[in-house]
């Protein structure tokens, strides 16, 4: 089946090509396509040419295959299958391979620095690509988990704006105990 080509224009006026089936991974693009408002090029004023190819790469992987990300979220295996009489072991194996391959792809896909992460998150949000948004949010969370405030600042390139007194206060507040025994 040959697919219609869609053209997307980034905020800095660069045009990118994407298959319609891939573009449908984005709710926003899907609505534009289904709404018949397609007029040559779709302008995306909120997505720069740095980020748009990254988004297109994700859509190509997931376009027309909306189920995959869901299966990953469920741990990769659809447990209901086991109780179905026509349960196909071969199919199940193939599915596992697909899921493993997708996980590996996502790992490599998500290997970038935090500025890209934020821009990608914005693009995923703007284009309503749920799976991509989840990926970016999870990645941000993983850059926080188990880290000290210092390490988090470093990961996200943030400077602390607390005064030294406030920093001190956050470490420990311990009252002086009353040092008196009232009994006679």
């Amino acid at each position: 089946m040959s697919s219609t080509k869609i053209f997307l224009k980034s905020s800095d006026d660069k045009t990118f090509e994407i298959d319609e089936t891939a573009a449908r991974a984005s709710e926003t693009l899907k609505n534009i396509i289904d709404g018949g408002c397609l007029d040559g090029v779709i302008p995306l004023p909120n997505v720069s040419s740095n980020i748009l190819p990254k988004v297109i790469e994700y859509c190509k992987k997931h376009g027309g295959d909306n189920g995959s990300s869901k299966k990953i979220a469920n741990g990769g295996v659809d447990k209901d299958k086991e109780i179905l009489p026509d349960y196909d072991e071969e199919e199940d194996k193939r599915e596992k391979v697909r899921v493993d391959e997708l996980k590996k792809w996502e790992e490599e896909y998500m290997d970038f620095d935090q500025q890209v992460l934020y821009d990608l998150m914005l693009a995923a949000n703007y284009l309503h690509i749920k799976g991509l948004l989840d990926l970016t949010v999870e990645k941000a969370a993983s850059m926080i988990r188990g880290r000290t405030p210092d390490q988090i600042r470093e990961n996200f390139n943030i400077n602390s704006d607390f005064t030294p007194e406030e920093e001190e206060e956050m470490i420990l507040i311990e009252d002086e105990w009353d040092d008196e025994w009232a009994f006679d």
Partner: protein
Amino acid sequence: MSHEEALRLVFPLLNDRDLASCMQVCKHWKDIARDDYLWKCLSARRWPSLCKRTTPPPVSYHELFTLLDGRFHRMDRSPTLSFDDLEFYIDIWAEERIGFSGVVPCSLIRVGVKHLPPEVLAMNRPYLESDGYKIILPVRPKFSIPIEGDISISVLVRWRDENKFACIFEKGKLDQNELQGFAPNILQFAPPITLNILKVHADRAFISLLFMPDFNFEGDFSLLVHADRSRVFGIALDFGVNVRSKTDALLLLSVLDWD
């Protein structure tokens, strides 16, 4: 989507410790991470019964979480209560007859114990001197109770400025088994009776009666095994090891159900 909106997507995926770290990153993060909805969710996961109360707690869920979880020892604001505002209503029954009934005013309340009266046995000192925050209420006049038999106790606290009451310990009976080894252990622990707010955490708060021998005695206290009465000179409210400061103790009291 602003930075703030992005963080509001990320923060719900974090646990309490990570969220606490986020609050220390910068002021902007702190404002978002202290969102009480996040802390309500975390509190509900840790202490499900906390979020089933009919009235919202008078402190934020963040403060409540911080208080109940000993790992973070930080408070954002001082409690609205002060010890000067409080008075304790104490009733103690022995064999269902009232043994002591009185209001212990704030002026007699002392927290933390460093200088114990000489009658307190050496073996009981480690408890009274240990970490963990205790409110010690002296009982005057001291009264005697039989060692055998039922002992019940109830403690209410009144917040004078607001003229509100809260129940700290509902009338509860000492288990006879708990009385084993009572003498020569001058200090008698009641079974753990929990603060209303902390029903899920039976080991957090408990009440103790402080005993001393009912006669002037010098010499070997182990002979007291044969004493049949003992004199109560005080009551200790122990909030457990997570309550380590006056602020913590006051915050814990402030989250009682005040009526």
